[in-house]
Structures are given as structure tokens and as C-alpha cells.
């Protein structure tokens, strides 16, 4: 396989910081609920809370972010050992996308431009919901499109 700097085998993956995919889906589910509450109540403080979670998770990585921590403490012990781990970089990028949407939403809510607040938060809900339900990886999808736009460097 020519894409390969990918670690093979569970211990190599773990050493490389790879993560349990179920943790990612769990975190996405919590994120969806929090964002949905923020959206329905048009409550900027709930949105701010989620924005902070996004920011921490971007910096610390999905495994060490707040929702990842909850997963490891409460959910993971009840599950079987994963037979395969996942590259943490796409979920990390997805957190960044969520953070950007959240910031736009906060700007909208706090400045009174309610449409911006609703649309940006709504987009964040769509991304989180798709991630939670079908494991849709927004970062993965955008990566290739981003590459195509850049001038050929190969």
C-alpha cells in the first residue's frame, strides 16, 4: 500500500497515538446533543461551552479531550477491546471545523445577528450528527478536495 506511514498492529497504533473509533462516535453524539440544545434555546452560553470543548480537544487530541475522557472513564471499560484503532488527525481536524462554526455562531448570537448564530450552529449540528450516526468524517472528505485545489507539487 503506497500511502504508508500507517502503523500496523494494535500496539504500534496505540504507540502512535491512534484512537478507539467508538470514542469518536460517542463524543460526536454528546456534541450533537449539546449543539442541539444551544440551537433550540438560542443560548450562546451552551454554545460557548461546546466551543471550549472543541478548543481543548483540538489542542489535546480526541483521546484527551473532555468527551474522550468521559468515554475512557465510563464507557470504554464496558466495551470489548478494539481490534483496530484510528488515525486521530481527521477527528482532530473535525474539532477545528466545529470550533470555527461555533465561533461564527457565537459572533452571531452575541452581536444580535441571529441568522448567523442559527446557521453556523445548525451547520455544526449537521456535521456532528453525521459523524455520530454514520461516522461521516468531514476532515477526510475535505482533505482531498483541498489537495486538488492546490497546485501540483508532485
Amino acid at each position, binding site marked *: 500500500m503506497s500511502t504508508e506511514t500507517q502503523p500496523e498492529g494494535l500496539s504500534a497504533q496505540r504507540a502512535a497515538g491512534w484512537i478507539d*473509533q467508538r470514542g469518536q462516535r460517542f463524543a460526536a453524539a454528546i456534541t450533537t446533543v449539546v449543539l442541539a440544545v444551544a440551537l433550540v434555546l438560542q443560548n450562546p452560553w451552551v454554545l460557548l461551552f461546546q466551543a471550549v470543548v472543541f478548543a481543548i480537544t483540538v489542542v489535546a487530541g480526541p483521546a484527551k479531550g473532555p468527551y474522550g475522557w468521559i468515554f475512557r472513564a465510563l464507557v470504554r471499560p464496558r466495551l470489548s477491546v478494539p481490534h483496530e484503532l484510528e488515525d486521530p488527525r481527521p477527528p482532530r481536524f473535525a474539532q477545528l471545523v466545529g470550533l470555527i462554526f461555533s465561533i461564527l455562531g457565537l459572533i452571531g448570537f452575541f452581536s444580535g445577528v441571529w441568522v448567523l448564530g442559527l446557521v453556523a450552529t445548525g451547520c455544526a449540528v449537521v456535521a456532528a450528527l453525521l459523524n455520530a450516526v454514520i461516522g461521516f*468524517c468531514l476532515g477526510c472528505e475535505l482533505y482531498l*478536495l483541498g489537495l486538488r485545489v492546490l497546485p501540483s507539487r508532485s
Partner: protein
Amino acid sequence: MWPGLIALLIAVLAAAAFALYRRRVDGRFRTTAAAVTAETSPAERLTEGDLGAPLGRSATVVQFSSEFCAPCRAAERVITDAVAGLDGVRYLDIDSETKLDLVRRLNILRTPTVVVTDDGGRIVARTAGVPTKQSLQAVLPAGAS
């Protein structure tokens, strides 16, 4: 409360519509026009020069992957399993980043995208998303050996 609720409803419906669309499209091979007509444009064929490797004797399965692509490894497993024992079929996994010109020429928008060519390199079927073993075997030449 109402604007937020309506916004949420729109968001959920949009997500549901997209999820259903993906469920339908993912991994389902489309046979291309090149399978039927004799003439092909560069967008419809792959050469050994393009791939940096020889074509398969009866067919070639080319997977376009990229670094940020969790489903690509699942696709690799399915395809390896599907072509096992089919000696005339060659499987190539390509890092899109190293072949951006090919990606643009074939209009590849997602990874994994799996392209099946005949023995002459003409693209006869393609799909985006992870294929199933059956769907792939259905577009490979029957009794390829």
C-alpha cells in the same frame, strides 16, 4: 424558541437526506460509458505510465486513497479479499497526493474511490466509498484467472 427549533429540524432533515444519499451511493459501482463504446478519452483510461505499474492481464482494480482516510483501509481489506485467487486481476492502491494530476483528470472527489479497468486500461466501472466483495466481483471479468 421557535427559530431555534425550526433550525434544528432543518439541520436534522439535511443530515438525514445526506446520510440516505451516502447509503445509496457508497460502494455501488457504476459502469461507465467506456465499457460500451470503443472510443475513450484520457479521462476514461489508465495507462501503465499513469499508474507506474503494469496493468492486470484481464483487469486492474485501482484504489485512490489519501492520508486522512479511515475508510480506505477497510476498502483495502475488501478488495484484497475479493481479488484473491484471481490471477489476471491486479490491485493497486494509490496515494492520491502523489498522483494529483490523475485525480483531477479522473475527477476524483473522495477517497476511497475505486476504479476498475479492463485489460486495455479502459475504465469500465467506478465507485466512491467502501465497495462490497460482491459488488466488486460483479464488475470484474467473469472467471478472470
